[in-house]
């Protein structure tokens, strides 16, 4: 196990970069911990602690920006949490090499998701000028304030999205990553929810994903609380700095940097597994 100072530093950098690129920090932290020699089964709970603290750090800014669609997040998380339950229970019985390979695939998928993310599909509509952004009661629709005006949207293909979320949850439970890099494209590409809303809603749901997995890992006695505390301290600080920096720095550039880093980590993990 790396020292607490190293864990704080790693978690800080991972959460900060994760918040900048909109991927979440655990997807960077867990593969790096495994590369440093930590068993994937022990790295997974630390990843979920990092995901939970990153979600908490980003919660208020995203809530105040009106980007989180709570109804959509809670609905999608029902099937994602079922996947997390299955993944977390299975992760205990998989070999370290298998978990490393899964992590490598996860890291490579995240690299692709970060590198290939698209621009705006939903455009501002002048008829909504002057309205407040937010979710519309009783529906999976809403609107958000974009630089060019208010953008209305409605979630489409909900059953397909719910099914895909099982896979996102399974990956989270198995590997300890938050799954935001899968959930965000599911909501934006399958369900046609704007990327900004998808990313914020995905960050909101990460808290539930992490809670589901942590409850299982805690009952299995798999959480090293001292290492976990270091990860949470780094994650909260890094997440806060990352969210603040996101307003000033170019998110696309950050995503490209993360994409290259993740691809490198994936290759090394494949070779080691």
């Amino acid at each position: 196990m790396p020292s607490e100072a190293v864990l704080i530093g790693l978690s800080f950098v991972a959460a900060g970069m994760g918040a900048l690129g909109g991927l979440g920090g655990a997807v960077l932290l867990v593969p790096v911990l495994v590369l440093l020699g930590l068993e994937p089964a022990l790295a997974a709970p630390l990843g979920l602690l990092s995901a939970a603290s990153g979600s908490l750090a980003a919660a208020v800014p995203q809530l105040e920006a009106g980007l989180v669609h709570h109804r959509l997040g809670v609905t999608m998380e029902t099937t994602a949490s079922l996947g997390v339950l299955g993944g977390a229970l299975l992760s205990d019985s998989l070999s370290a090499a298998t978990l490393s390979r899964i992590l490598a695939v996860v890291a490579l998928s995240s690299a692709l998701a970060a590198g290939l993310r698209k621009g705006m599909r939903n455009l501002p509509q002048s008829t909504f000028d002057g309205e407040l952004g937010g979710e519309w009661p009783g529906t999976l629709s809403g609107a958000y304030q974009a630089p060019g005006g208010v953008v209305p949207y409605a979630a489409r293909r909900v059953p397909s999205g719910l099914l895909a979320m099982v896979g996102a949850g399974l990956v989270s439970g198995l590997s300890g990553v938050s799954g935001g890099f899968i959930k965000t494209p599911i909501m934006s590409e399958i369900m046609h929810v704007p990327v900004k809303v998808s990313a914020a809603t995905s960050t909101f749901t990460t808290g539930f994903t992490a809670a589901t997995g942590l409850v299982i890992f805690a009952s299995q006695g798999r959480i090293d609380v001292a290492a976990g505390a270091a990860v949470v301290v780094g994650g909260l600080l890094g997440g806060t700095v990352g969210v603040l920096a996101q307003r000033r720095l170019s998110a696309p550039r950050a995503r490209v940097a993360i994409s290259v880093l993740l691809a490198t980590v994936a290759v090394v993990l494949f070779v080691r597994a």
Partner: protein
Amino acid sequence: MTTPFNPRVDRQRRLARFLRVGAVITFVVAVAALVAPGRAGTSFGVAMVGVLVAVPLIRLAWLARRWLRKGDRRFALVALLLALIISAGAFLGR
């Protein structure tokens, strides 16, 4: 088209305050887990995990209650279902 928007600022102020307090408590307890020696450190660590699990669940309960009060029963039920799934982990993990 009607305008089904709800002003979000006031209604979410309390939730934002709760989340800020949750983040501060998590940070303080995590630091205490790092610096406190022996069993005390472990207890703070366990409390930290407890807070990280509790904050999203309380937020979920807050949402379910608000949706129920607004007559949005369908989503209140979905929130309840999610809470049940998360709670199931405690039993399935044993």
